[in-house]
Every structure is written in structure tokens, then in C-alpha cells.
């Protein structure tokens, strides 16, 4: 993901749901992480939900943007902007050339690439194992 305001692609924020445990007793009420045997369920749930929302934003890149092209789930942790998308989103692709023009522009590069592949198994043998 990338922030189109400050070009941060590392730090982000999102809201996720977790669970806390309330324990009532003689001394009043304790609020703590919920444990099932050795497993910290509160922390597990937080991590799972975080992974889910991030994966959803990556997979459904266009769907998570509202009409202002702002991300409904993630915002940039550096500048706070919600203009956060995958680096190659439909939003930025508007700046791209039409594909025919792009192909034309890259024609020489493509020819080089194909030439390399065609000649790949025809390189001269510089040494031979005995």
C-alpha cells in the first residue's frame, strides 16, 4: 500500500475489533486479556482482524475507496491521509498512456528483450569442463 500524499509505503493505521475479559469478584472487577489455556485470545483476535482488513484492502483495492478515492479502512500513519491504495491502483492508472502508445514507446526495449531470449541458447561457449 502507498499514501499518495506523502508516499509512505510502510506505516498505516486502521481500526479493528478485539475482545477484553471482565472478571468479577470480591475485590471488584478486573479487565484483562482473555486467555484460553496458554493462548491469548484477545491478542490473537486483534492480529487476525488486522491481517484480514489489510488483505481485504489489497484484494479489493478499488472497492475500499469511497467517491473521494479515500480508503474506508486504512489511513497513512505518517501524515494521516486516507488517500491510501495499492501502488498500481486504477486511481493512478489514469495517468498512464493508452496501451497502444505505451507499446509503441517501449518497442525498442521489447525488441532487445526478444533478441536476448532468441540468442540465449546460442551464446559462444567460452570454456568447457574437462
Amino acid at each position: 500500500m502507498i499514501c499518495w500524499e506523502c508516499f509512505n509505503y510502510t506505516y498505516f493505521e486502521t481500526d479493528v475489533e478485539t475482545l477484553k475479559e471482565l472478571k468479577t469478584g470480591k475485590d471488584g472487577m478486573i479487565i484483562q486479556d482473555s486467555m484460553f489455556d496458554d493462548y491469548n485470545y484477545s491478542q490473537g483476535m486483534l492480529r487476525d482482524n488486522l491481517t484480514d482488513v489489510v488483505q481485504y484492502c489489497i484484494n479489493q483495492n478499488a472497492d475500499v475507496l469511497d467517491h473521494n478515492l479515500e480508503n474506508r479502512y486504512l489511513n497513512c500513519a505518517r501524515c494521516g491521509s486516507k488517500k491510501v491504495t495499492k501502488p498500481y491502483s486504477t486511481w493512478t492508472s489514469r495517468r498512464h498512456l493508452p496501451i497502444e502508445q505505451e507499446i509503441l514507446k517501449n518497442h525498442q526495449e521489447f525488441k532487445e528483450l526478444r533478441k536476448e531470449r532468441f540468442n540465449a541458447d546460442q551464446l559462444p561457449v567460452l570454456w568447457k569442463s574437462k
Partner: protein
Amino acid sequence: MQINCRSCGKANEFLLPLWVRTTFKFNDDGSLSILHVKPLESLEEKLTDNHVHNELVCKSCSSNDVEIIFNEYEESDKTNRELAALEGL
């Protein structure tokens, strides 16, 4: 404050959902690391809110038929204040 499960009657542990704002980073291998977690709502405030009944779940039997009983002294304190108010008249 006392919380009772009307279903199993004996539990003293309950689960309550809580929204948190999480700051994280993408690691080079694509995994996520958590940098900061901040609660978006106060559990204390949530508990005194009437809607919390629908969200509280008994940890041992998973029932959401849970009742919250506020302490008696809060009740008697209210009565005392009402009496004091009457005396003031």
C-alpha cells in the same frame, strides 16, 4: 458492580468486544508488525451504557443472557441524596 450469567448462573468471567486503533507497518517480507494500539472506547463507559447487555458474553457458556447489577451503595447513595433533597425543602 456485579455481572451475572442468567444461563449458567455461576460464571464470573465475561467477554466484551472493544474497538482499537492499530498502527502497524509492512515488513520487507510482507508480514505486519504492530507499533501501537489505542482503545477507541472506554470499557467503563461501555459498561454503564445500557446497550452493553447485547455485547457481553459469558466466557464459560457463551450465553449473552447477562445481567449487570450496579452496587447497592450506589442505590443507597441515591436514596440518601433524595432524602437530603427532601430535608432541604
